[in-house]
Structure formats: C-alpha cells, structure tokens
C-alpha cells in the first residue's frame, strides 16, 4: 500500500502478532533473509520451534499455495517462497528434532523413469516439508526398483510420482503394478501429478489421487493421511 511502502520495517520492533503477519508477507515475496531473521527473533522470544513453523511458515505457505492453485502466482514466485521457507526450515529442523515435534507423515517422491522434469516435483517436496511432512526426494529418472528400494527403506505413508511428458506418464502405472505384485500397494497412499495428467488418468492407473499442483498435493496428502490414521 502506497502510504506505507517507503517505511522501513524493523522486524525486531514488531510485536509477536505483527511479526508473524509480516513473516507471512515476506514468505509470499520470497524474502529469504527476512524469514531467517524472523525465525531467529521468534525463537529468541521463547517460541517453541513447532509454533514458529506452523504459525509463520506453514500459514504463510498456505496463502502462497492458495494463490498458486488459483492461477495468481506461478512457478517462479512459488519457488522463491519455497526457498525462503527452506531457509527458515534449515534453522528449525534440528530444533524440531530435539523437541520431538509431531510429524504428519512421511513421503517418498520422484520423477519417473525417462523424465528429467523436477520443477513441479521439487515444489511438492518443499511444500510438503513446509506442511510438516518428512520427505525423501529421489530426484529424476526414478525406475520402479528405485521407488521400491526407497519404500522398503523408509516405510513412507505416501508415494508421490511426477511426469511432465506424455511419453513417460504411463510409467507410473508400471510402478503401481509393481507395488501390487509385491502386495504392498494398499500400505501406501499413491499421489500422482504432472502437466499432462488428469484425475481420470490417475484413477485409471490405480493411484489414490491426482494432484493438480503442489498446493493440492499438500491438501490431499494431509486429508488422506488423517483419514487413514482415523481408520486404524
């Protein structure tokens, strides 16, 4: 807003409520150093690491995710925001581990065999982390054996697969068939995404859900993990 645009904002002079709101704005604008400073200030004021994560970073990324989903922000802005969040997370992660903060769930994610596109997949990974999930990111060109080895090792709640090419997206079906043949398909929530996919495609290959973008992936993962926890 014009009347406040030129004002210098000193984060340490803001009260907790204002600071959290400012951090959400700074996250939206992808301001990495300001996020690091804000996280440090809140911790210095005695905030629990988990509260810093959820009230400033996760809440801020929710707005970013909503605007991404609604076609107001695009990949570059969301990447900047996610990088700022990552910087905050780097400070919080060791503290969260010490304080035994709750994890929502664990995800193994990768771009399928033959496909090198990982922009969207990395966004999903970062936003899932921001939402409190533990994420094991297998990178690009991931074949069924690599997915299965990671599943054996990490015992995730969720398997995420990404493809950007119409010539690689069918490989997701190959991986799901492999899960079925090993009898572990139903142990996992399988989420798929990528530009050429759609909901019907996800259903037809036997995934639990198609996620249109990273924001939808976080929403869907949270919902399905919660449902599954309630059912057991």
């Amino acid at each position: 807003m014009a009347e406040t645009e030129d004002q210098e904002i000193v984060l340490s002079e803001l009260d907790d409520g204002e600071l959290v709101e400012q951090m959400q704005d700074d996250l939206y604008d992808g301001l990495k150093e300001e996020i690091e400073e804000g996280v440090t200030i809140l911790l210095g004021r005695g905030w629990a690491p988990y509260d810093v994560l959820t009230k400033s970073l996760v809440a801020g990324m929710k707005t970013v995710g909503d605007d991404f989903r609604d076609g107001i922000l695009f990949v570059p802005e969301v990447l900047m925001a996610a990088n700022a969040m990552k910087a905050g997370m780097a400070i919080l992660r060791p503290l969260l581990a010490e304080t035994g903060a709750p994890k929502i769930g664990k995800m193994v994610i990768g771009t399928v065999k033959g496909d090198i596109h990982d922009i969207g997949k990395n966004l999903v990974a970062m936003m899932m982390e921001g939402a409190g999930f533990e994420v094991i990111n297998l990178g690009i060109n991931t074949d069924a054996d690599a997915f299965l080895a990671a599943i054996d090792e990490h015992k995730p709640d969720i398997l995420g697969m990404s493809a950007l090419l119409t010539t690689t997206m069918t490989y997701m079906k190959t991986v799901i068939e492999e899960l079925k043949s090993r009898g572990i398909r139903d142990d996992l929530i399988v989420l798929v995404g990528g530009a050429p996919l759609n909901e019907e495609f996800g259903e037809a290959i036997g995934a639990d859900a198609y996620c249109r973008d990273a924001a939808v992936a976080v929403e869907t993962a949270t919902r399905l993990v919660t449902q599954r926890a309630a059912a057991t």
Partner: protein
Amino acid sequence: MNALTTLLERYEILLADGAVGTNLIPAGLAAGAAPEAWNLDRPEDVRALHEGFVEAGADLLVTNSFGGSGRRLHLHGLDDRVVEINARAAEIARSATAGTGRQIVIAGSVGPTGDLMAPLGPLSHEAAVAAFAEQIEGLKQGGADLAWIETMSAPEEIAAAAEAAVAAGMAYTVTASFDTAGHTMMGLAPGAFARSMRDREVPPVAFGANCGVGAADLLAAALDLVDNAGALPVIAKANAGIPHIHGETVVYSGTPALMADYVRLAVDVGARIIGGCCGTTAEHVRQMRSALDAHTRGARPDVEAIVARLGALVSPPAAGVADRPARRRRRA
C-alpha cells in the same frame, strides 16, 4: 529465404503435422524410453510416422528431436551423440517427403532442456545457449529448414534457444505451452510472449502455442497471441484433447472430428500455421486437411464461442484477481 517463409507467401494457411512422441508409443516405444533414440535404432518407424502425416496432407513436418539436447539425452547415455541424433532426425523427416512433388517444410524440433534457468535454477544462459547450439547444429547438418523451438514455458529459455538459432544462421519459430491458468507454467502470458517475439532483434518466422491442456485452452491463448502479433504469423498446434488410459493404452479425448473443428476455429482466430500436438494421429491430420481445404475464414470467435464448440477450458485464467484483499505491507 527459408522454406517456411516461402510457403507462407504462397498460401494463406499451412497445415502442420500431428504428434511424434505419443504416436511412437503404439509402435513400441517403451514408457520412459527416449523417442530420439529411434532415429538411430528404428529409423523406418520414424519415417513411417512422418510419411503418414505427408499422405494426410501436412505442409510441415516436425522432426523427432524434441528431447534432443545434450541435457536431456544425458539421461539415456546418448549425450555424446547429440549432433548425430539431430542430424538423423532431420534426414529421416526429409526422406519421408521424397517423391511427393510438394514442398514440405522440415522443422527441426527443439524442446526445453528440462532445467530451471538461473537465478531460480542451475542452468546459466551461456550453458543453455551452448546446449541449444549443439542440437541446432545437428538439425542444420541434417538439412532441417528451421529450428522449431517448442513447448517452452520460461522466457529466459526461449531467449537462449532463439539466440542459438540465430547464431547458427538458422531461421526459427517459437511456440510456448499455455497450460496454467492461461499462462505458461512459469507465468508467461500470451500477449507478453507475443510482444517479446516481435521485439527480438532477429524475430522468428512465426510464433505461437503448442501442446498444453487441450484445443480450447490453446485457442483461447491464440486470441491474445494474434492480437499482439503485429505482422508475425501465429502457430497453433494443440493436443488432441486430454489423455485417458484404456487398459494398456493411452487414448486422447479429441476425435478427428473435434480436431477438424479446431482447425476451422483456429483459422477464424487468425492462426496461419495449424497442426496438432500430443495425441494427434495421421487420421486426425487427414480430417484436419479436409476441414482446412473446405473452410473459408469466418467471424473471429471469442472464448465463449471456442468453449461452446471444443469444450470447457481445462485451466482457465484466474477470475477476480482484483477482488483479493490488499496485502498488509510490501517491501521495496
């Protein structure tokens, strides 16, 4: 003068071909395998695909080199054969036109590297130009008429590919994929893209839209492209609908009849090079040719008219952006 400009001077509308990658799948291309490897291993299958498009009446063939830059072929252990693979791609396409007596443009496909460019990602401008230059050198050696830079989403990558084409002395075209709320994935809007093309020191022969999320979304973007094109011809190369999986095979929702109607609409929108992308078979192109030959340019449709004939937009532009609450403070 390059072959595409020559044909554009002779004909009001040119028909481009259909898909390469998705059409090699029924021929046996495995999920995740590199289509470009077939230029070395199974050239007859690639040639047969091109021949199908030639027989269907295409004026322009896009080569089997979409993923033919070193940064992508690296994945398949083929990055030491970039020039050879791209040269073969152009030669195979050219050989498919032999004996037709028609002038058919060989458009050397150049797809994105798949990497994010600096400062967001690791790929520097120089490295991107070098990767595209190597690929375009191969296409040129193989006799391609121009570099057909396609499915782009990042302005920086478009600039790098165009720069490489110009440095190689090749004519070029650029098409972007408007698959995200009326923009490219990286947020490039059709109008802004059009203006950036016009403003280049060496402008493309033509520019436009390809791939994306269906014919309706593509033509909605094409309206803005044409409005901002100046004198540059606009390309429309839409997917044949969206992919559905039927048992073991992927079927696209766009029938040949729908793609024929898409051609008529594309003409009315003002596109001058019209073709299909993923899911578009020779049979689609045949009906697209008939539709084009029988059609006289009609009134320009608006988005509503496009949707009424081709179906709803898959990823419509954001509505009500201006209504969103103002943000608290914004730093400079």
